[in-house]
């Protein structure tokens, strides 16, 4: 078959609709499953005195731990604001995604078991990253067998990405007068969060109800930014090309801030923006929701 294209100026609108529909179609079943799964597992002793406080263990995620602790501090602030008692298990390290995504399942299995053993005492596990939460909910059960598989499934049912937890479980609200202005924001849907967890409306809803944000959607916000874990270092040219496309669409939205829920993607985008001299502030959603604009954006100088 031979195709030729007749591209009209309405293309952008069509694309946008197209993306929205794909997202709506794909996100719906996922969200239904999530709701079913989101029943907390309260131990007997906790139920009487639970008094609506959520017992949450924070999975900081290794990237936030190393490169941007402000994400974790702001996550804690948001969770506490939502009425959670937040515990940070001090022996946590990495969920094992790097090895898993390069196919080294053998190296990943002990990390998965370690993670489960560290976190399974929690009522809820919350991570400020869709791909890390997805690793636990979707991929641990894939690579673990027998009793560990069961434990993985059990933990998966109680594990959430931050914006998902804040909006679907904790139902965080904030009085209008306490909402701070975060300027114009465009939101990039990171792939794992979007497709594995159905995260799409949650961050936008929170931006609109916890802050004063001027949300400007970019075209094809569901297309990958080119990070892909080790992909970005193994195939840098292809990865950069994808990042540039994403930045172009973000800029075209007119927003001054590009936000997202996965630090890997954001570092990729911020780093590429710097390299290309593109002026856009790249921030994690937790920072915006907590109103923390004092922390320099990703890749910005921390010395005035």
């Amino acid at each position, binding site marked *: 078959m031979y195709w030729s294209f007749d591209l009209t100026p309405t293309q952008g609108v069509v694309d946008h609709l197209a993306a929205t529909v794909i997202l709506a179609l794909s996100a719906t079943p996922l969200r239904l499953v999530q709701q079913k799964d989101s029943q907390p597992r309260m131990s007997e002793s906790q139920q009487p005195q639970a008094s609506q406080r959520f017992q949450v263990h924070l999975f900081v995620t290794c990237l936030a731990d190393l490169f941007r602790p402000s994400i974790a501090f702001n996550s804690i602030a948001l969770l506490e604001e939502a009425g959670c008692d937040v515990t940070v298990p001090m022996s946590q390290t990495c969920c094992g995604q790097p090895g898993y995504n390069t196919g080294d399942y*053998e190296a990943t299995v*002990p990390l998965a078991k370690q993670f489960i053993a560290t976190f399974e005492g929690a009522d809820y596990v919350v991570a400020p990253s869709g791909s890390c939460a997805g690793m636990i909910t979707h991929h641990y059960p894939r690579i673990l067998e027998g009793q560990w598989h069961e434990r993985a499934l059990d933990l998966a049912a109680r594990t959430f990405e931050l914006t998902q937890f804040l909006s679907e479980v904790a139902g965080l609200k904030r009085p209008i007068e306490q909402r701070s202005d975060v300027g114009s924001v465009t939101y990039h849907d990171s792939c794992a969060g979007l497709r594995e967890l159905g995260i799409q409306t949650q961050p936008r809803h929170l931006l609109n109800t916890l802050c004063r944000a001027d949300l400007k959607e970019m075209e094809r916000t569901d297309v990958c930014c080119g990070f892909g874990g080790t992909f970005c270092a193994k195939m840098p040219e292809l990865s950069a090309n994808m990042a540039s496309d994403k930045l172009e669409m973000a800029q075209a939205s007119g927003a001054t801030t590009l936000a997202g829920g996965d630090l890997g993607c954001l570092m990729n985008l911020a780093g590429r923006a710097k390299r290309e001299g593109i002026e856009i502030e790249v921030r994690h959603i937790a920072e915006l929701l907590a109103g923390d604009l004092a922390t320099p954006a990703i890749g910005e100088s921390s010395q005035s």
Partner: protein
Amino acid sequence: MTISSNDFIAQSVVALQEAERLRTRKELGKHMPALRTRAVEEFGDFEGLREHVANVRQHALDNLDYYLPQFEQQAIDNGNQVHYARTGAELNDLVLSICQRHNARKIAKGKSMVTEETELNHHLERAGLEVVETDLGEYIIQQAGETPSHIVGPALHKPEAEIRELFLDKHPLGPRELEDPPAMVEEARSVLREHFLSADVGIVGANALIAENGYSLLVTNEGNGDLCANLPNILIVCTTMERVLPRARDAAALVRLLTRSTTGQSISCYTSYYSGPRRQDDIDGPLETHYVLLDNKRSDILASDYKDMLQCMRCGACLNHCPVYIGAGGHAYGSVYQGPMGSVLTPLLSSLEESHTLPSACTTCGRCAEVCPANIPLPDLLRDLRHDESRSKLGSGRWRVSMKLHAWVSQHPRLYQLLTGLGVRTLHRMGRRRGGFSRLPFASGWTQERDFPAPQKDTFMHQYRKQAAQDE
């Protein structure tokens, strides 16, 4: 199957530099998903249809030992001859021997990925036969001596001007303008018409084989398949055994799914069922018809953890939605199968040794699996192939060792926090003024194309521990 898949990275870098072709691909990457989305939306319960067809196909695959003989018997009863080819070479030999038995000189071919896979054209041409591809895209690349860059739109990479040049050069029709695509299509049409009328043998593929009645199904948008199948005296249908479906209505359901996923059409322009040779009072049709059913490792795939891949209906949606395919272009994959489906299929049909770079040519973004009408979990299969790669130590040793090291250190929280703390504080001191690094010795893959954002002053774990100590 000749492949150059392990040169994917170098080939993709070249493709990224071809500005005009890259632009065309990016338009494709916007345009085709929009068409598909609209079609899916208009259909309504696409999800239900998808699941239904996947279940039927799974059932057929699980019971191939029942349906394949059933198809064979029905097809024979309809007057067809049915042959099985274990390998590509066997298919090529079978087809050649049928052609030679009839002293054929010219073959008119419809679009067929199976014969691309076996490189049938070369085989027939080496034996002195003339083979004419009649699908417009296939015809263009055949004239240009190129390979397909997209399983559905094989000539997608060729800009209009190149096609014009090609036609002016290859068609001895004197000086003319060929000012626009319709003029070029018109010319190809009239040239091809002569070939249809003079061909001795027609070869087509099949989108489905129907067990209950022994028919095959073919969808095209140009009608060339029907001309190949009906004008020459001999028809050979080359396809693979996993195309078998139990009932005629399953084939109809498949078409609904396939055309919407491919081009966003609710139905293809030509949807044909072939039963067999011309019957007594038929006014046209071939005198003799053959099915050649290729295995080429598909039995092995069926018995493996990759059997979901046999559900692929070659719709091309995963290519159109894949940002890596859009960037790299089809030729970078070094295989007749490209994009996500090609990165799974090529290693399975050839060997992982020859193509282990392909499964890594993916960010596992999952957009392909989201749109795949056959519900194939492509990112999971690609990751599993990386697992095979990792176990057979085919990939870069440096990556393998660093992943092992990372996993080992991550299992020792104290050591992990000590090392990351040291590293982060050093990087912070070095990078805080600029905010990032344009070069880092251990992250050259990263810094080749982007700056590396400098970390904040210390790891979270250290800061949190300190804070907790102060609070007490």
